């Protein structure tokens, strides 16, 4: 629903993402604030912001695959790992520029994801979730058991820093801008996909795949495409992750991470790109809060002991997510839409 007095008179206005001047203004301010962030906060928070931006790319991909197309995917961290390892190998062995390795990592992850997307042709829901967990273990097993000279095995692999015209993108701030630019591009692309025929086909397959087939949508190809796109996003995120840490290892991409990515889209709201971004921000912020509060708590209340504090912090994080599921199962985006509609109708009830 549009605010009072705003009426679309052309179809282009009706499909526009930003419909009022104020919305354009708000977006401009938000992007300017993001661009100025390194000037405003310290390096510690910039490092956190980098992780948030990378997670945002991965989770937006998961949102397309799971939130829009309804294909439960518990292997997103493995897809991310494939991207990270691809970037590591390409950058280390071939010396390709990050401008090429990042999209190529996405393509490699998309190829890996596509294989699991094909299994979605035959199975749904619960069974598909189990199959995508297999992706996680195939990845883990392959990296650890391939010859050590290929991917580094359990030692992991180092990654040279990204360079642009001789400038090394190695500091937190320069990495922040790299991640920010990539995130903006990927989020813009996600908005393009979800409001195109593909987004509609994804939702059609999610809501009623029988009807979707009869409407002329190739259900198998659509599901596979959803995995392809989701894994591509994960691969791009993985490549950035590799450039950020300059080191990749299998234990950075575990089932635990995949579950957290799912938690992010649930907390933010299924079927909304903005919801995915909100979910990433909220969960990562809580995680960060806990990791920074933990040591302080352990220091100020010494008789508790560090172990108990750290263990209970994870319980607290899990509890926070469980609380979200109980209070707002449709996600924060849903709540925001209700508030927005109410505000625009005020003082009338409908």
């Amino acid at each position: 629903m549009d605010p009072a007095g705003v009426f679309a008179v052309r179809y282009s206005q009706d499909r526009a993402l930003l419909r009022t001047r104020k919305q354009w203004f708000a977006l401009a301010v938000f992007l300017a604030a993001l661009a100025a962030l390194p000037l405003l906060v310290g390096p510690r928070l910039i490092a956190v912001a980098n992780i948030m931006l990378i997670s945002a790319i991965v989770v937006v991909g998961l949102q397309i695959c799971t939130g829009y197309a309804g294909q439960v995917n518990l292997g997103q961290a493995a897809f991310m790992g494939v991207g990270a390892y691809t970037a590591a190998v390409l950058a280390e062995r071939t010396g390709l520029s990050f401008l090429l390795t990042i999209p190529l990592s996405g393509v490699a992850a998309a190829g890996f994801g596509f294989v699991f997307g094909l299994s979605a042709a035959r199975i749904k829901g619960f069974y598909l979730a189990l199959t995508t967990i297999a992706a996680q273990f195939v990845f883990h097993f392959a990296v650890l058991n391939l010859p050590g000279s290929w991917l580094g095995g359990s030692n992991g692999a180092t990654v040279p820093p990204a360079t642009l015209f001789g400038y090394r993108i190695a500091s937190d701030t320069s990495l922040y801008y790299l991640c920010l630019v990539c995130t903006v591009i990927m989020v813009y692309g996600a908005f393009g996909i979800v409001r195109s025929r593909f987004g509609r086909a994804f939702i059609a397959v999610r809501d009623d795949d029988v009807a979707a087939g009869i409407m002329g949508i190739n259900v198998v190809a659509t599901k596979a495409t959803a995995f392809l796109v989701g894994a591509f996003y994960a691969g791009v995120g993985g490549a950035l992750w590799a450039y950020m840490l300059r080191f990749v290892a299998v234990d950075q991409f575990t089932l635990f991470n995949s579950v957290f990515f799912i938690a992010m889209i649930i907390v933010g709201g299924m079927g909304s790109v903005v919801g995915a971004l909100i979910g990433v921000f909220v969960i990562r912020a809580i995680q960060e809060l806990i990791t920074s509060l933990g040591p302080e708590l352990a220091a100020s209340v010494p008789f508790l002991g560090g172990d108990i504090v750290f263990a209970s912090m994870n319980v607290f994080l899990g509890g926070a997510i469980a609380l979200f599921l109980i209070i707002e199962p449709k996600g924060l985006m849903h709540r925001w839409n209700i508030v927005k509609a109410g505000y625009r109708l005020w003082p009338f009830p409908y």
Partner: protein
Amino acid sequence: MTPLAARDVTLRFGGVIALDRVTVEVRPDELLAIIGPNGAGKTSLLNVLSGFYRPHSGQVELEGETIRSLRVDQVARSGVARTFQGTHLFAGQTVVENILVGRDVHMRTNILQAFCYFPWVAREEDEHRRAVEEIIEFLEIESIRNERVGTLGYGLRKRVDLGRALAQEPRILLMDEPMAGMNSEEKEDLARFILDVREARKTPVVLVEHDMGVVMDLADRIVVLDFGRVIAEGTPAEMQRNPDVIRAYLGEAQ
């Protein structure tokens, strides 16, 4: 040229013969009703015609070309649209988006173009949106175009279902019990839309329907199925007098 024909179609589910050497031809511009008692195989026949079931033997031909071996989405792309018994709308989408899904068969954008959302992608969207608006106007659902279909009443949902099928600009329209569960006012509206579709678009319509009043008023020709066989075929007036039809519906006098 016959728009759509099933020739000698046999369909079995295990030991049950749902369709037994059924031959049905749809003529150009006609409204063909398929009737029969419960379990006669009406919906099975519709599912065969729309490519949802593949018959064990026999042919399905769309304008002379066989579509028997095509997938269901390929059948839809070659010009067969259908509406559903009950509703099978995409509940998470608005009315406009549901009908736009029907336009998908005419869209050409690929995933990379969608990612970049090039100006011509937007232009394609707008062209199809224009076609959708014509259908919305035709079905008189302007006021609910931006509602999510999950919130709509049954009668309106059936209209959206019809709109989605019309958006495909099909060469033939199949309708599975469109009148089921509607009140008489909604039935009248829908009957008017079905007649208008035929008038304005010259699209032949195949109607599976239980409501005899509607069938007798609308249909040009009726095919009667019983136990998977065609037992009679002809105009509504002929069918009302046909002893086989009366026997199938009312049973034998002792």
